[in-house]
């Protein structure tokens, strides 16, 4: 969880610059996490590695990399087996979810050491390229609602789950990322529609509370083990948040 939300930027260029700075900080964190993960897998400390994977995956979610924003490197870091000829056994399946798959399907250093090394290298490379990477201002309003749309479409659907069942944890990190992007755009949004940030924030707070109530002494339950009645407050709050976030891109749109 980010310690505090960043200050709003006065222009969209400023938002992009501040976002780039934020991502850089997250990638700093992720670099360290990927290195630890690599070491744990190399030492066959798989229980530790499973916890470290979740920390790393949540850091990536907080980046808010919706919309394939980081291109091939983003896919290498956070790709999925869907669409690959050999699915989860495909050599093109790499990165965080590949580690999740292995760590929750009885694999160990033999299968995962190289994957972990590549993940570390990919994160370092992305971090290195970040300062010159093109980040479009027009993506920022879309990112503001796409991050949580992805939570619903990919995480809470179970589609992304490679065995950990940690959709709630990932959604919680997605919420963090959304809050950061919204905070950066607060001045712009509220200039275009006074008070709208507060309205959206109220729905995000409700989602945050619904997520927190699923936790058992600080640990996240596996999403699929929760009965429908326990999932509904989360998906209901998420749905309400998405309905209000859907108007953020409209504020910046030139066509209607």
């Amino acid at each position, binding site marked *: 969880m980010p310690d505090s939300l960043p200050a709003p930027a006065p222009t969209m260029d400023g938002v992009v610059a501040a976002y780039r700075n934020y991502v850089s900080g997250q990638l700093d964190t992720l670099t360290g996490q990927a290195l630890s993960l690599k070491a744990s897998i190399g030492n066959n400390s798989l229980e530790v590695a499973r916890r470290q994977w979740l920390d790393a995956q949540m850091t990536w979610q907080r980046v808010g*990399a919706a919309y394939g924003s980081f291109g091939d490197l983003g896919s290498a870091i956070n790709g999925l087996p869907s669409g690959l000829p050999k699915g989860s056994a495909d050599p093109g399946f790499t990165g965080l979810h590949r580690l999740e798959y292995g760590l929750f399907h009885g694999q160990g250093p033999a299968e995962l050491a190289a994957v972990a090394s590549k993940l570390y290298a990919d994160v370092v490379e992305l971090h290195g390229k970040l300062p010159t990477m093109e980040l479009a201002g*027009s993506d920022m309003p879309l990112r503001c609602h796409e991050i949580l749309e992805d939570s619903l479409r990919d995480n809470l659907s179970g589609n992304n789950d490679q065995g950990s069942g940690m959709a709630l944890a990932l959604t919680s990190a997605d919420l963090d990322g959304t809050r950061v992007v919204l905070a950066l755009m607060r001045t712009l949004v509220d200039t275009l529609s006074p008070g709208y940030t507060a309205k959206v924030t109220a729905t995000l707070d409700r989602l945050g509370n619904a997520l927190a109530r699923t936790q058992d002494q600080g640990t996240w339950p596996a999403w699929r083990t929760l009965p429908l009645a326990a999932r509904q407050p989360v998906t209901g709050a998420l749905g309400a948040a998405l309905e209000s976030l859907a108007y953020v891109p409209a504020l910046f749109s030139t066509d209607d």
Partner: protein
Amino acid sequence: MTSNPTTPPRPGRRSFLIGAGSGAAVTALAATAANAAIHSSPSATPASATAPAVPFHGATQAGVYRPADQQRQACFASFRVLATTKAELKTLLQVLTAQGVKLSTGVRAADPVPAESLPAIAGGPPQNSGVLGEDVPPDSFTMTVGLAASVFDNPAFGLAGKKPKGLTEMTVFPNDTPDPAWTGGDLLLQLCADSTDMVHYALREITKATRGLLALSWKINGFHSAPRPAGTPRNLFGYKDGIANPAQDEQLVWITQGSGQPDWAVGGTFIVVRLIRMLVEFWDRVGLGEQDGMIGRHRVSGAPLGAVKETDVPDYANDPDGQNIPLDAHIRMANPRTKATDASRLLRRGYNYDLGVDLNGNMQAGLIFASFQRDIKAQFEATQLRLVNEPMTDYIEPFGGGYFIGLPGVTAANGFLGEGLFA
């Protein structure tokens, strides 16, 4: 995340006006979408002269006796209420009311949109899904809302004192196999119209307008077949179903003053929904004589056995040993047509459903049984108990549904469903 290595990054969806300070593309109105939804006008004219509109407003809800001809398509949707306070529950019922009015009336795209119905931010997602094109016809649409006992039992709403007498969870009868995924819920919507896309459209509009207040728990769509060749439509056993329904003036359906129910419920009705799978492959391997005997009617005409027309009244008094109509025939057990059982009759308004395939490749099809009555125990349950071991039991599997109090109708232009709960 959009992260599949084989998927190229999506191109931008829109062109953007970047930067602050320009309000040109923005019309910021005070109302939020949800607030706007509450205030839609109840007096608008129908969108099309050819598609009939069923009035939403009335002392009783539509979708029971109104319209007189049962619509061809329906969706029965059961929701968990996510509202956490009485005020939120009230908002939910206000939004539902506004949706019911709007969908019943239809919308002409060319008509000016009242300012309060505009979303707070222009240029966002379209006003509706477009599934029905630009003009939304009324299409005989009705929305009927029911609340389950759980709403009255929820201490957050403070409605324990307003709970209707006899509103319980659905009784499990001896041959029922209730599936939790298809049973219960806090709030029922019965959505009926004459076309499938209208029913789909309506549910989609309503769920969007109530996001965060309602969570869909189960839903099932049904169809009311065309008359084959005439008269009452047939169910999936091939029999005319719903021939003998009480008329409104027989006063078996609506809760009235003196019913012993809370005042707020006058004009309401109890709704029973039962999802009844019909083992159609098994049924189709049974001889016609045996089928007729189980039902008590001729399949071809719908007439009671030994009679000619479907509207002929079975004469049990002159058939005490079941020579004509077996004593355990469905129609005879359900409605023995005696003085003692006369008050246990109820209004049936069921729909056939056709879902998919079971584990073994059999069709998952049957009946969405929906009945309306002023007293569940004295009417539906009394009838159901008479039917417990009818021969037809072998061919059906009740697996879901629920009991609900159908709310009274809305008469005032600014009124809303369930208003009496908040008085």
